[in-house]
Every structure is written in C-alpha cells, then in structure tokens.
C-alpha cells in the first residue's frame, strides 16, 4: 500500500489557538477516509494544508508533492469540492465545461456531459439559475470527469436535501470510485458516510485521536448494553466510555475478549458517531 498522503508534525496556529498541533497520519491508495471532528477541531485546516491552500509547519507529502510549493502541478492529480456554493453565479454550464476542458489535461468532457444528461440541468443555464442541489450535481459532474488520484470533499453535502445527499454518495461510489483512487471526506453527517468509509481519522483540538481502518474498529471495539444490576461487573473490564440509554448503561470496550463480555449483554460494533463521542469525551475526562 503506497501512501497518497503522508503528514508528520503538521502544526498551524491562528493567534494563540492551535488549529493543528503536531498532526501525523497516512492515507493509502484506494482508501475512502473519513476525517471526523467537532467544529474548530482542525479538519478544514488539515484539508487546506493538503490542498496547498494554506501555510503550515511540518512535513507533508501529497502524491510526491509538497503542497506549499507546487499547488498548480498538484491540482492535476487532486480534485476537491470545498462547499456547495463555490461555483460563480455568472458562469454558464457550458462555459464551466469549456473552461475545465481547456485548463485540465485530465478532464474528459464526454464523461461530464453524460452525467449532466441524467440531470435536469440546462447546459445554457447560468449557475445562479440552478437550485442548490443542481449546483452540487454540476460540480460533481465536473469533478468526476477528472481523472484524479485523490479527491477531497469538505462537507460536500451541507445544505442539501436528503435525496440529493443520498444520491451524491451513491453516484460517487458507483460512477467514480475504484481501487486506484483515494477519497478524503469530512462531514457532520457521519451516519451518511459510515457505510462507504474504509478508514477513520478522528481529530480533536488539533490532534489526531484515532487513526484506524473500519475493520480494525470492528475487531478492537465492542459496545455492550448492560442492565443496571450488571453495570459494576462490566466496569471491571475498564470500559473506554460509558453512557446511559433508557436507564441501561452502554459500555464501550477496547481489546476485551468478546467471550468475557457476552454474559453482560448483547454485543455490537459501535457506530462511528458513538465511537467518536467516546473518543473525544473520553479524552476530555
């Protein structure tokens, strides 16, 4: 597995706050990585560093490039959608196709047109005449027609209807993703992408608090819902986190034999959201 991104000791401060505080991680080829963290945790700053949009300290290698030096060259192999509303309002759909075709050596116009043909987008329309969902579809059509090695999505579905949101990820998986490509995505709607991720990166207060594949998460972590009378027995196994649901306690264990836990209650793999809360709150405690 060759590394598409390798970061080591990334640091970036805004005044006295450290947006990135010595962040190190690796992203391998063909992975779909969820970069997950609360607001202000440093997600967007990390993505901006990877895309060459901001300055920082530390070592960062993206597809063999230092993003600080060679942004334009890097953008031949990296695509990103930073937010939904970034296409300029005056741009016409066919102008967008013309422009990207002219400046991007990896752009296949026919692919973008085939994708747009499945939508209700008129190629003569201006962006300002399109609905929010259509703008996202247009942006996605442009990006998916680019033969890029790394696709970075920062809250790509924010402000979208639920139908578009589902569509977005389905299209991405079916029409775009293959083992040569790598996707790095951040979102608040963890549940939406949980099923497509291969890797997790949790970030909190500028630090990486978890880096793991989904498989390892399923192997290492187990959640047990325990009746009150067995709660003390459960605590003996030093749970990572404990929370109350309908008067029952839910314990999260890491690296404890499932054999031992089975008598306590029903075992299941924690959801990404629950794992995240446990990790972040567990750290704070």
């Amino acid at each position, binding site marked *: 597995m060759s590394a598409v991104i390798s970061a080591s000791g990334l640091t970036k401060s805004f005044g006295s706050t450290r947006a990135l505080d010595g962040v190190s991680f690796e992203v391998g080829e063909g992975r779909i990585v969820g970069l997950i963290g609360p607001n202000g945790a440093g997600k967007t700053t990390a993505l*901006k560093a990877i*895309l060459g*949009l*901001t*300055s920082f300290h530390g070592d960062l290698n993206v597809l063999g490039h230092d993003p600080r030096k060679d*942004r*334009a*060259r*890097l*953008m*031949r192999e990296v*695509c*990103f*959608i*930073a*937010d939904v*509303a*970034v*296409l*300029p*309002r*005056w*741009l*016409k759909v066919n*102008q967008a196709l*013309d*422009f*990207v075709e*002219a*400046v*991007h*050596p990896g752009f296949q116009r026919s692919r973008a047109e085939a994708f747009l043909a499945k939508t209700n987008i008129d190629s003569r329309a201006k962006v300002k005449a399109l609905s929010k969902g259509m703008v996202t579809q247009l*942006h996605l059509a442009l990006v998916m027609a680019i033969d890029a090695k790394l696709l970075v999505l920062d809250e790509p579905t924010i402000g979208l209807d639920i139908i578009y949101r589902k569509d977005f990820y389905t299209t991405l998986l079916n029409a775009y993703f293959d083992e040569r490509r790598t996707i790095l995505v951040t979102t608040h709607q963890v549940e939406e992408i949980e099923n497509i991720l291969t890797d997790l990166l949790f970030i909190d207060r500028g630090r990486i608090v978890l880096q793991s594949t989904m498989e390892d998460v399923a192997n290492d972590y187990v959640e047990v819902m325990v009746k009150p009378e067995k709660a003390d027995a459960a605590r003996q196994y030093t749970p990572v986190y404990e929370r109350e649901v309908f008067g029952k306690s839910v314990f999260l264990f890491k690296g404890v034999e499932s054999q031992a836990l089975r008598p306590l209650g029903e075992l299941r793999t924690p959801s990404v959201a629950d794992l995240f809360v446990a990790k972040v709150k567990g750290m704070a405690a």
Partner: protein
Amino acid sequence: MNTWNYLLRRELWEHRSLYLAPIVLASLWLVSSLLNFGHITVHFDFIPPQLLEGLMGGVSVLAGLSFLVLSLFLVIFYLLDALYAERKDRSILFWKSLPVSDTATVGSKLFVGVVLAPAIALTTALVTQLALMLVSSVAVALGSGPWDPPFSPKALVEIYGLFLYAAVVIGLWYMPVFGWLLLVSAWGKRSPFLWAVLPPAAIMMLEYNIRHTSLLADLISDRFIGVFMLAFDFSGVVERHPDFGAPVVNLSDIATPERVFASPGLWVGLLVALVILAGAVWLRRFRDDT
C-alpha cells in the same frame, strides 16, 4: 496556450461591461449623430461647409476622447474587482481546484486590464469615428453640398498611431498604479476602492501634518502626470504653424518615445510594479479567508 486563451475568456464572461460599455457608448454616439447631423444640415444649410467640417471634426475627436475616459474607468474598476470578486462570491476555491498557477491567473487579469480592455475600447472608438464621419459626410452632402471629410485617411492613421503610442507609453508608465489596484483587490476584505484610495491619502495627510512635506503627494502626482511631459513635445507643432492654422498632426513630430524609454522613472516604476504584482500573486496564493 489554450489555458491562457480561456483565462482571458473567463474574464470577459465575468466582466461583460468590458465590451458592453464601449458598444453602448458607440450606439449613443451613432444614434445622436443620426438625429443631430440630419437636423443641423437640414435647418442650418446656410452654414458654410468649411465650418461644418470643423464641427464634425470636433465631434469626432470628442467621441474618441469619450472612449479614452470610458476605458480608464473600466480598467480601474475591473482591476479593483479582478481578485476581489472571486473571494467575495467564494468561487476562488473552485478556481484554485484547477491546475492553473496563481501567477498565470494574476497575469491573465493584468493582461485583460492593461491590454485587452483598452484594445477593445480603442477598436470600438475607431469604428465609431469612421461611422460618424460616414454619417456626417452623407448628411452634409444632402444639406450644404459636397464637402471634404474632416480627416483624410492618412490623418486618421496618424491619429490612431498617436493613440496607440499614448496607450502603450501611458500603460507602461502607469504599471505601478495598475499593480496597486490588483494588490488591493487581492487584499481588501471589502470595498477595494476605499482601500486603494484612503491609505495613500491618510499617509499624505500625516506626512503633511507631521513633517510639513509632500513627498508622497509629489511622487503620486508625478506618476500620474509625468508621462505626458516626457511622451509628447508640442513645441515643434506650434513653431511650424505660427498662424494657428489647422495643425498637421505628424506623429514623428510630437511623439518622443526616446525620452520616455531613457527616463529612469519608467524603469523604476516597472520594477516597483513587478514587486507589487508579486505581492498580489503571493496574496492570492496564501491569503486564506474562506
């Protein structure tokens, strides 16, 4: 090459006023000339053709000047907007997601402002003047009788040669000003026009109140006016026509490019412009306010 071509098109897609405004101005001149020349020649056919000639010539020159003033305004406001609009509408991240360097982007915007926009305005001006002359010739021929057009084709070529020369020389001389407009456009969070004007004005006032000097004011006014003293020499024209007959405009007589290109002011200005433009590129590269 294709990238450059589309970078320029991109600017015209966004800033349609760069070609629409000259077209509107041209239509205004043509419509008003159609209305007025007809009126003048029909009701004032006692006016001798020679006087009409002068009148039409004056109108034609006025039309040319109006395009110069228009292109000055278009260029100033285009350059102030060029790197500001993409930050304001947050499309900058889309543009930056494409493999186009910040140098190429800023370069394309400078080229549009300094070369393409004035070229569009001057071409429209030429077409308008030709059309005005055609309209007036026909009008006069119908009224007072046949006449000579105010400018011979040779004179017209010379006038436009002079325009072109003035545009090139002034463009080079004003380069630090254009660069400053782009820099402010890449920098200001809002209202780039005020950012362009207020800080220099504030420094000028401070300087005057504290040190009782006007170095910056002198520097700026020299940057705006200095080029005209260097680029043209009208003394020869006046000497050769002591009776103030219609001066024969001869490009080689009044244009003095050698004085401009020998002036350190030009080269220092270009160097300063280069530094300012590098600053604009740097700001677009690393300014992060999204």
